[in-house]
């Protein structure tokens, strides 16, 4: 299982998902010929091709490793966690990951990406007979653009409804400018407590860009936000253009009557997500 996770990490770090590549390509064609925006989007595709061919990280910031694991009853959780930790240390040694874990008390980098909260593991036991592991590599620049709103919000004129949520999402994109490596993907959670809101917003980032929201009202809001944010003119890397985000994905979690949080997680254009299924000892990646 350790080798399977090592390969999952390698693929996540070095291969940009096809739907993301296709989206960057399609948006690039819409930018004016010879423009800086079009040139930058083209370079992004060049980088993805080079990283995959050389099996080197797409981005030097290999980020926080967020694992979402769904596992069958017969597999002990601890065995999975142990295999992941060993795979993370091995992947760091092989240069698929940058040593990225710093103890804030001593300021020492642990050197192997292991430490309190690293990697970030989310376990969920399910009734299916196979294991599903989803991995997101989320860089620090994009993580720093995450933001949580508490509605109502006077500055945005945002009340406790989907119009208020729309205002928050647009504001998050304006505040991020190019800092999170635009054109990014916005993962949003409406509701939840503060901590859970961020978790749900990040889980949204596993959705493919063309995956429509099953809730009609949220699907409409996703489409509207995508269109409106791309009218802001922020553009690739915040240097101007019509491509500011590649997608907006919205999930929900129940809230307390007293609280109404809107949480936005920004994922950079280098949207490194990979999935692995282990069934009857056979491993499949997607």
């Amino acid at each position, binding site marked *: 299982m350790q080798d399977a996770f090592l390969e999952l990490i390698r693929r996540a770090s070095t291969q940009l998902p096809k739907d993301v590549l296709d989206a960057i390509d399609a948006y690039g064609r819409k930018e004016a010929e010879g423009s800086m925006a079009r040139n930058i989007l083209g370079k992004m595709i060049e980088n993805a091709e080079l990283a995959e061919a050389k099996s080197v990280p797409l981005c*030097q910031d290999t980020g926080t490793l967020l694992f979402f694991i769904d596992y069958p009853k017969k597999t002990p959780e601890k065995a999975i966690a142990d295999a992941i930790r060993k795979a993370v240390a091995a992947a760091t040694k092989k240069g698929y990951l940058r*040593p990225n874990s710093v103890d804030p008390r001593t300021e020492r980098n642990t050197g192997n990406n292991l430490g309190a909260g690293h990697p970030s593991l989310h376990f969920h036991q399910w009734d299916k007979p196979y294991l599903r592991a989803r991995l997101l590599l989320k860089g620090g620049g994009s993580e720093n653009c995450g933001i949580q709103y508490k509605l109502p919000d006077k500055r945005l004129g945002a009340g406790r409804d989907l119009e208020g949520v729309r205002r928050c999402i647009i504001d998050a994109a304006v505040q991020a400018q190019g800092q999170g490596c635009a054109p990014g993907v916005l993962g949003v959670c409406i509701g939840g407590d503060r901590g859970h809101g961020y978790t749900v917003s990040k889980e949204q980032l596993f959705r493919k860009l063309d995956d429509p929201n099953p809730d009609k009202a949220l699907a409409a809001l996703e489409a509207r936000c995508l269109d409106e944010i791309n009218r802001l003119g922020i553009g690739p890397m915040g240097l101007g253009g019509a491509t500011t985000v590649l997608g907006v994905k919205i999930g929900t979690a129940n809230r307390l009557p007293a609280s109404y949080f809107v949480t936005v997680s920004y994922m950079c254009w280098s949207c490194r997500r990979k999935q692995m299924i282990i069934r009857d000892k056979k491993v499949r990646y997607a």
Partner: protein
Amino acid sequence: MPKKIQLPVSEADIRALHAGDEVEISGIMVTARDAAHKYMVEKKPDYLHKVLNGSMIYHCGPVVGKEGGKYRFIAAGPTTSIREEPYEADVMGLYKVRGIIGKGGMGPKTLEGCKQHGGVYLHAIGGLAAVLAECVTEIVDVYMLDEFGVPEAIWVFRAKDFPAVVTMDSHGTSLHKAILDASTQVQQELYK
């Protein structure tokens, strides 16, 4: 066509650059990010004068490999620059650094620093780690590796035709501020 810049570079050559200019930089430059900036401003280490004078600082925490006793950059794109806003203008003045390369742009203090000390801010494409690592031909030296760890260490390296765009110049122009202002205006229209 991008303008070629060879390091070390003179103040006059840097003052001739304007926001929007595309450049390709060759020569010896230095990585520095969060821990290094705090260190340069608080401890003012003397040994950095020699490498930084007339050179450029690259905001980057690379993935580094070692082969046959020699380091090399495996992945080396820019990191977010704005975190160094409290320090950068002082670093430019102190060490006569002529350019800051990073992503996302910087604020008014650095813009003023560019004006006062004769420097520019250059934007490299974020996430372009594999492509930009190819522009690094040699690791010349490294400082504070044990103290700061690999991403935060001060790496001295030789670059060849490193691509970037001037987004803040020594004449007070910042493309970042212009785009922030314009997008904030569109935001208000979307709220109507």
